[in-house]
Structures are given as C-alpha cells and as structure tokens.
C-alpha cells in the first residue's frame, strides 16, 4: 500500500520550493556580493544597488512606487508592522481597528494583543462561502476607526474578497483622516476614512493586484509562497500613511525597519516576482483548470462538500469536507501514499482546536473535522491530480469503514 517513489506536493499554500532561476540569481549575494547596504564602499554600494533594483521590481508588480515598499523578514512581521505600526502612529486620532473573522493567525493574534493595549477591535463575520460583505465594512467604520485590515484571499478556503469595493468604502467614509500631508500648505487637508490594509500573501502573484485601482493603503506579500526564498517579505505602505516602526535601529528601510538587509533573499524575492509577472496569466489558467478538475471529481464522492466559493477562489486552492471521517487521518494516509496535503481538523493542530476559518463559514465543530485542503502550484501536473483522484475515494472508503458513522 505504501509507495516510496511518489512525491506529490499539494501544499503550495504552506510554502513553495524555490525556483531554480531564483536560486541562480541569489547565489552571488552570499559570496562575491556580500556587502552591507549601509556601507559606503563598493561592496556595500553593490548590495545597495541590488536592493533598490529589487524594490522597483516588487513595486512594479502591484503598481506601487519603489519608495512605498518596505522589505521585512516574513509576512508575519509585515502584518505586525501594519497593525501595530498604524495603531501606535495614529492612536491620537482613534483606537478602533476592523479585521475579519477569517484572518491569518498573525493578524488575529496581533489584534488580540492590541486589544490588551487599549485598542478596540471589530471582527467582521463572513457568509457561508467565506465572503465579507462590503456593506458590513461600511457599517462597522466609526469616527475613531483608524485601520481596516481584510485578508485578500483566504489561505484555507481560498475565497477572494471584494477588496476593491472594501477599499473604496474606506476612502468614501470621510472621517477625519489625512492621508497625504502637504507640508507648509495652508489649504485644508484632504479628509479620508481609515487606512486599508490587506494581507495578500496567498493572492500576490496568483491574481493581478493594483494597489491604486483597488484602493489599498498597505499590503503584505511574502516571498516563500511564490517560489522565492524564506526570510523575505514586504509591506507596501502608501506614501503619506502614518506608521511607526517595530524595529528601531540603523535607519534601514527608510527608517521603518532597523536590521541589516537580507540582500540575497530580497534579490531572490524580486526575481520570483519577475517570473510570476510574466507567467501569471497562463499559470493561473492552467491551475484553474486543474483545480476545477479536482473539484468536479472529488465532489462525486458521497457526502463530500466544497468549502469556500466555487468560482471566487484562488486558482490553486481546493478545500473539501468529507462526512464521518477525521482530516488528520486522511492527511496521514495521503502522505503515506506520497501526497502532501493539509487539513483544518482539530486533531492536526497543536491546540487541538478546529480551524477558526471553517467555524466562521458556519460549519459546526463536528463538520470541520473531515476537511482537506489541496493547494496546487508550478510543478503540479495533470497526472498528479489523476493519481490523487484515483487514491482518494479508496482512502475515504476505508476510513469510513472504520468510523462508527460511516455506514
């Protein structure tokens, strides 16, 4: 039953392998071009040039200006910087922040911590597909709302939020905010609503993003989810947004992130962006086709359901739910057959709690156990999907035979 040879990776939403083209471009920055970007000599300036070039490339992918991109070490850091940085820089204007119930843990936990510091958090619900209603955002914005942070696409169920509409609402809601400050100007300052941040870790590089068209003020993206190395991420911060740094130090990253710059990782991140920009359309079409094939066929299994939205979802994400069985045993069995996938079941988490995203879409705790997420990527082949579709019904049948509810 076990098969050593098969190795199919269906967990690209967790992390991705680094593209060989990315590795190639990174290598010199470990050796010959090892300089510190803050040094005045040639070694340093070479590194500095590479850093600034990378900034331009990343900015370009989302329609931003280079000076609006801050490099960080991880999406968790970017999200912490966005929430804490905006909260503390604007607390004299208000202490209310809006997030959703389906954010990544690094937003949820940061918001929880800010709550302890005296900030007020509103957590918006989602419908059964995982969609946030822009109207709910509108209603939730108060006079003291300083920030709205909504995940662009769910890492678990893949649902893509109406970000453009939500961003527009944040702009329309004229509270008392000044987004850009013209120093020395005597004209009354433009007054806008709260800043709008989106965690775009899963969507970045998979669906097109334009921060201007989508009315985004802050955006988080991560390198290792898009075939770049771990240890590099970014936060887009629109010009004029008031924000405090998390890391005080030597003035790197326009004073917003003290730390010696991780040049090899950032160069790799930028190269990964270039590749994605070129391939995004074709790749998105290819993955959507594979995803739809898997959804169509998996749902032929009795008592199986799709979590999330049928069409408004990431091209590479499918999330299922099978009655009467438990997701951890399903994932382990798939792993034993050479397929790497993941689950939102309580048994698979260290905290032994079911996924908060699955609860937020209205599933009962007992319905969350049999969930299975597959996330496809650059090296997923149709024959991998076929193999998965071949073994999955057998595994589910066996687990249901063992289960007291399966007959």
């Amino acid at each position, binding site marked *: *039953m*076990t*098969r*050593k040879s098969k190795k199919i990776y269906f967990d690209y939403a967790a992390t991705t392998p680094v593209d060989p083209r990315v590795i190639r471009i990174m290598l010199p920055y470990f050796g010959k071009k090892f300089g510190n970007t803050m040094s005045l000599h040639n070694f340093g300036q070479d590194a500095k040039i590479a850093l600034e070039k990378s900034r331009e490339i990343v900015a370009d992918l989302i329609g931003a200006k280079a000076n609006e991109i801050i490099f960080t070490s991880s999406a968790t850091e970017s999200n912490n910087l966005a929430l804490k940085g905006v909260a503390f820089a604007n607390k004299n204007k208000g202490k209310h922040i809006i997030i959703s119930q389906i954010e990544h843990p690094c937003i949820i936990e940061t918001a929880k911590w800010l709550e302890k510091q005296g900030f007020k958090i509103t957590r918006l619900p989602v419908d059964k597909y995982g969609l946030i209603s822009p109207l709910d955002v509108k209603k939730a914005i108060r006079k003291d709302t300083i920030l709205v942070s909504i995940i662009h696409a769910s890492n678990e169920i893949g649902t893509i939020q109406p970000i453009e509409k939500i961003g527009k609402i944040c702009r329309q809601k004229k509270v008392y905010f000044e987004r850009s400050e013209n120093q020395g100007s005597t004209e009354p300052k433009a007054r806008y609503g709260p800043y709008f941040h989106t965690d775009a870790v899963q969507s970045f590089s998979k669906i097109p993003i334009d921060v201007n068209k989508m009315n985004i003020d802050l955006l988080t993206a991560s390198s290792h989810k898009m075939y770049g190395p771990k240890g590099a991420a970014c936060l887009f911060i629109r010009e004029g947004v008031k924000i405090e740094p998390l890391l005080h130090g030597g003035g790197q990253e326009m004073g917003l992130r003290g730390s010696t710059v991780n040049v090899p990782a950032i160069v790799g991140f930028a190269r990964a962006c270039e590749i994605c920009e070129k391939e995004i359309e074709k790749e998105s079409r290819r993955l959507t086709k594979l995803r739809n094939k898997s959804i169509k066929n998996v749902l032929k299994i009795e008592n199986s359901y799709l979590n999330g939205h049928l069409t408004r979802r990431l091209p590479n994400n499918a999330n299922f739910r099978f009655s*009467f*069985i*438990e997701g*951890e*045993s399903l994932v*382990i*069995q798939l*792993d*034993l*057959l*050479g397929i790497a996938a993941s689950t939102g*079941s*309580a*048994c*698979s988490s*260290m905290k*032994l709690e*079911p996924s908060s995203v699955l609860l937020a879409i209205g599933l009962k*705790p*007992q319905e*969350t*156990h049999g969930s299975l997420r597959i996330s496809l990527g650059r090296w997923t082949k149709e024959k991998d999907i076929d193999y998965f579709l071949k073994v999955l019904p057998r595994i589910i049948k066996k687990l249901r*035979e*063992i*289960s*007291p*509810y*399966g007959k």
Partner: protein
Amino acid sequence: MANNIYSKKVIEHFQHPHNYGKIKNANGIGEEGSLVCGDVMRLYIKVGKNEIIEDVSFETMGCAAAIASSSVMTDLIKGKTIKQALKINNKDVIKKLGYLPSVKIHCSLLAIDALRAAINDYLSKKTK
C-alpha cells in the same frame, strides 16, 4: 514510507487496524469521545464463559493515533478476563505503539475509556 510524526507501529496499526467493524452478539458496547472534539471510539465486546472477552471490535472516527490506539487496545484485551482487562491502562497502549506524540496521549486514554465503558455496559446488563 515513513512518517515523521508517528512511530512505525502506529502507522502499521493505522494502515491495517485489527478488529475493526461491528461484531454480532456483542453483550457490551461502550462509546467515548465526542463528535465536537472529532474523536469518537465505539467498542463492542462479546464476553463469554468465565468472564472471558471472546471477541472484540472497534469503530473509531479520529486521527491516526486514535485509530492505532483502538486497534492495539483490542489486541490487548482479546482472550483476557474482564478483571484482567480492567487492569490495562493507557501506558500499556502506548508501550504497544512504541511512542505517541505528547498531543496524542489523550488518544490512548480514549481507548481505555471506551474499554471501561464497554465493560460497564456488559456488567450493568448482566445484573439486570
């Protein structure tokens, strides 16, 4: 293929569980766990002459550790008297499995709870 979370023995019992399903003429049935937690174990025992557990089977919805614990527990009690079976605890289950990750210890406890529930069920029916 090896799995880095579980011991070889856990994987073995998970992939090829012993004594699963229902048995006919069970005279003791015990169920433990809850659907909310995601671990439910149902144990069927057939107690015969001299209080010997002649046959046993389980049905479990749960993780690999829960299924393997159930399987091992049925092996441990088959052919034993009720008195002997009641002496078995979760450490015996873990020992048989080689090792269980700390977050999975409760799965071995669940197996023991189900066993005691089944024996209680048998005893309560007997006294009636």
